[in-house]
């Protein structure tokens, strides 16, 4: 405590307790702190991603521009037989950035995960994951394969119940919904892709790029 200057002269003639009562009438103040809502954040990781540490360790997400490849080599004798061909990925991501839990099994599975942070308690307004799918994969010399030949199953080590990004088949030439992430949730799945192999096509390397987009309302 520090000494301060004297009080107002008008108070001096009053008995101490009365002075107290009168002073309290008009001199009370408050100090105000304005708090603001938390920020909105979305994070999406398809294949490899960047995260400093893990969520449970107080880490934070980063940016990773890598485009991972999912591929299969169909033996010549198998082309167009209708025997589904398992695809593999060059992604090496097995662990979740959520808690470093080993969740996927690369190269058979591709990790897809993310989160949606949003303040407030609005209902029914999840973030939506979509895929923009070209019509075809192309070999660069006129040969094409419909993207609808590619499908996937969904799972996760230790998971039970429905996956946030469930099994599906690419809808060629469209933007399709892959799944959703509820408000203030982390969602992740491991996708296992396969090629339907029902088309007889010329030999070559067929490629195409699917772009995944997480959109918050």
């Amino acid at each position, binding site marked *: 405590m520090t000494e301060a200057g004297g009080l107002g002269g008008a108070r001096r003639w009053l*008995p101490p307790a009365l002075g107290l009562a009168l002073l309290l009438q008009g001199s009370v103040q408050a*100090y105000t702190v304005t708090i603001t809502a938390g920020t909105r954040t979305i994070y999406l990781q398809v294949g490899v991603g960047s995260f400093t540490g893990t969520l449970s360790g107080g880490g934070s997400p980063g940016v990773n521009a890598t485009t991972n490849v999912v591929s299969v080599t169909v033996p010549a004798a198998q082309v167009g037989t209708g025997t589904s061909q398992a695809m593999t990925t060059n992604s090496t991501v097995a662990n979740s950035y959520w808690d470093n839990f080993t969740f996927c099994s690369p190269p058979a599975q591709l990790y897809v995960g993310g989160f949606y*942070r949003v303040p407030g308690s609005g209902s029914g307004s999840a973030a939506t994951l979509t895929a923009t799918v070209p019509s075809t994969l192309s070999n660069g010399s006129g040969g094409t394969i419909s993207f609808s030949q590619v499908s996937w199953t969904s799972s996760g080590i230790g998971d039970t119940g429905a996956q946030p990004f469930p099994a599906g088949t690419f809808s060629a030439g469209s933007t399709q919904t892959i799944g959703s992430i509820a408000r203030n949730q982390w969602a992740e799945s491991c996708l296992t892709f396969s090629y339907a192999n029902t088309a007889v096509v010329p030999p070559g390397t067929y490629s195409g790029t699917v772009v995944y987009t997480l959109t918050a309302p």
Partner: protein
Amino acid sequence: MKRLLGCLLAALALGTAGAATFPVDEVGTFPQGSNAAMRWRQIAPSRGGDNTVEAAVVINVRLNLAPFRNKTGKIYMTLPQQPVTPVTVSWTTQGRLLPGQLVSGQRGLVYAGPILLPLLEETLVLKIEADGTRLSSAQNLDFHFEIDID
């Protein structure tokens, strides 16, 4: 007549002061920066569902205790109940006041003992926490100080 009235009022005040709580004049108390940007404690939603947002703000405290000088009492910091979500506030001090914690709608003890000097200056560092899933817009927290005279 004025002097007689003054004495009567004084007697009334003295008769109720023993158990009374009085506001404390805190003119000159202000936060360093009026806005506290709340940050998610965990930037991503956690498995445990921790949706806390938090912020720290420094408060320059200046309490006029002259009316209570040479009395013994307890000084509290108070925060009214908040309309959207409860707010938890904890604070550290430089030693003149006590560190503590309160939840909106309650009060937290910052001093207990004799009031020897008329002015108390202190710096508090408040840590403010709330449920980020309920706090959707800016909210004013109006803090007060009050004293219980023994």
